[in-house]
């Protein structure tokens, strides 16, 4: 399946890239158990567990790719620094990648492609994010003064630089989830999409409830035992509310979309909270896995990225995966019916529901996606069966690694079939990917 004519590589035969396993630390709520842990700390903690699980101490891995969305400038070489702080051989190269919430999935795609082409035999992909330990920058005014001050030679020049400082320049800037081009927060953008598709409060709360119930059930049956390493006292995702109910979710007040002429429906319960965490995935060629007596959970088959024009209001900010999906399916000659698992990242419950509604809409698929009719229906019993971001939390760059490792394990448990991943990202982007059981 990995050799797809028309995928750009012509008919050249490429080898399989397999998911060997994964590891993550439990996700913490912002300001919680990992409040004082940095991105590097958490990425190393996730790597430590992966290294221990697969006996990688002192091993030179082909390449490590990871990233963080909220990244301090001192962490310019975050992934390489994490490798140097890990038990991996210091001869393991690494690079940072950033594609907002698609970061983690894109690192998997990039390293899987290198494995397929024979450039590397093994790789570790992943990501990390801390909303607690987020970088805070000085104001633009103060920054300019400080830079001029560092260049000033004479006392007069120094005085001139300092005299430009205004009280308002002393207020620091914390990162926001606002889109630079629109100034709208991600939640407000999604509220527009939610209203446009008429996604109801009840449908959103039901999806959130399923996410918590599915994640709790996955913990109960020990699903995460070989996918997770405890960290700083956490053994489960701190955001998980195993005892939540539709009644409890229904009581929450809407937080996004209050200014629209339709009722506001998005609450803290059906939106993902700010979260801290890290996740990594071990990838390899079949030969690498066999030579090292490692499991092969699933093949990384193919992936597709897309972007939409949300700036001019032509499309919703988080709707890019909707456009990527038909291109990926067509290239692989597949339909929704060919999949046993759907992992649609729950940035907001309504993001998942808007995407599903779009794929089911004959008009949308004809006019926007250029298809003959609706792309198809997704069997909801196959959706996010082990919980997703609404319950687990969403440390931006860590989500891709969480999804890939969990889906690969689910496919290995089933022993057959395919899984489809869809991740939306800031900037109007998205990445979708196919995994296949072995």
């Amino acid at each position, binding site marked *: 399946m990995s050799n797809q004519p028309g995928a750009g590589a012509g008919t050249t035969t490429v080898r399989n890239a397999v998911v060997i396993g994964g590891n993550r630390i439990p996700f913490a709520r912002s300001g919680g158990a990992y409040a*004082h842990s*940095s991105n590097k700390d958490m990425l190393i903690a996730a790597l430590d567990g992966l290294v221990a699980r697969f006996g990688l*101490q002192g091993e030179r891995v082909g390449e490590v790719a990871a990233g963080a969305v909220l990244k301090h400038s001192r962490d310019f070489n975050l992934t390489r620094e994490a490798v140097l702080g890990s*038990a991996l051989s210091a001869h393991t190269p690494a690079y940072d990648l950033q594609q907002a919430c698609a970061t983690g999935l894109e690192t998997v795609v990039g390293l899987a492609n290198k494995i397929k082409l024979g450039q590397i035999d093994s790789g570790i992909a992943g990501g990390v994010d801390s909303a607690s330990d987020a970088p805070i920058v000085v104001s633009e005014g103060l920054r300019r003064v400080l830079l001029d001050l560092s260049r000033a030679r004479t006392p007069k020049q120094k005085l001139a630089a300092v005299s430009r400082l205004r009280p308002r320049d002393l207020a620091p800037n914390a990162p926001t989830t606002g889109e630079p081009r629109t100034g709208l927060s991600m939640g407000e953008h999604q509220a527009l999409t939610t209203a446009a598709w008429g996604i109801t409060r009840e449908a959103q709360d039901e999806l959130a409830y399923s996410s918590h119930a599915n994640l709790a059930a996955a913990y109960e049956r020990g699903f995460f035992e070989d996918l997770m390493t405890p960290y700083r006292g956490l053994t489960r995702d701190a955001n998980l509310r195993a005892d939540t109910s539709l009644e409890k979710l229904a009581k929450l007040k809407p937080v996004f979309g209050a200014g629209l002429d339709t009722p506001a429906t998005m609450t803290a319960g059906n939106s993902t909270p700010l979260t801290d965490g890290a996740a990594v995935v071990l990838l390899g060629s079949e030969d690498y896995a066999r030579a090292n007596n490692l499991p092969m959970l699933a093949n990384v088959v193919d992936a597709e990225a897309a972007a939409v024009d949300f700036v001019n209001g032509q499309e919703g900010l988080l709707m890019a995966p909707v456009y990527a999906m038909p291109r990926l399916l067509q290239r692989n000659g597949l339909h929704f019916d060919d999949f046993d698992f759907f992992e649609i990242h729950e940035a907001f419950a309504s993001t998942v529901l808007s995407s599903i509604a779009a794929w089911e809409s004959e008009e949308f698929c004809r006019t926007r996606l250029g298809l003959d009719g609706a792309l198809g229906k997704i069997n909801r019993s196959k959706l996010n069966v082990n919980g997703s971001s609404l319950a687990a939390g969403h440390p931006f760059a860590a989500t891709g690694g969480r999804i890939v490792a969990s889906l690969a394990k689910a496919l290995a448990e089933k022993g057959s079939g395919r899984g489809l991943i869809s991740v939306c990202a800031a900037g109007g982007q998205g990445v979708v990917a196919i995994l296949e059981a072995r």
Partner: protein
Amino acid sequence: MNEVVLPAMPALAGLYRQAVVGAVLRRAGRRSAASALPVVRLRASGGPVDRERLTAFQHLVGQAARDAVPSAHVHTLAFPVAMSVMARPDFPLPLLGMVHLSNTVVQTRALRVGEEFESVAYAENLSPHRSGTSVDLVTEVSVDGERIWTGRSVYLARGVRTVNGREEHPEPSPDGFPDGSPGTSPAATDDGRDAALPGNGDAFIPPVPTAQWHLASDTGRAYAAVSGDWNPIHLSAPSARLLGMKRAIAHGVYLAARMVELAEPAAPDALSWGVNFLSPALLPGTLAVAVRPGEATGGSVRRTEVTGWASGAKRPSFTGWVTGQAVDPASP
């Protein structure tokens, strides 16, 4: 050996006060010096490790905030028990002005976040030294009855000769401070008494440096905040000057912790290291550091040698080694 169980992990501040009182009594002749070490082991329970303090310690010494407690942090957790041995009235050496010569640590597995531990400390090897009398303070840390960490700190009481039960020629303390912490050797005071310390004699030829440590003036204060050891000799130039030093100096365990992190960034559970403090690292200051990887005796296991020195110094600040196995430092 008698064992005395302390009701709780002692506070260092109280022990420093006790040492000062002991010194005054000793000076006044009200307390005679013993000629032998107290035949006693002190025991105290500690933990679980404070997560925030652990994270702060790890970040300060350049370590990732893992759940495994750094072996050097275990020293700071158990140090109050060793200090309690030295602060006893029947301890034969004056705690004030003691010089820390070396540390060795053997760890069979790492202490982990959330674990409670027991710490036992005792003194042994009261030995004549060319400049006084040296003593070993041994600290053992156990979890659920299993010993996982053993540390040996060697201290020197300058000018103190313990013969027939009394101190002969007790020399006034050069820094006047109950220095139970390492790296506080006053050897750099230009008083010509450098011969007290090992590593003297052969001229020091600096190796090729592989790293540079910039030690800011607040290094000692920052370390005190994460270790709980507020020895004034590390805190500021004025407080250090009161105690006879030219400037504040870096804490030895801080240097040791950075040495271990440099040599074994992902330290395995089984780990041993040793460090000799040869001259103080003045604050603020810069140390050139050389890391030389090699193999432990018998091969297969890495043993890294680390040397740190200030530019132009006649002697290194410290020399040390780190190896990824639990070896007995007594038979290196």
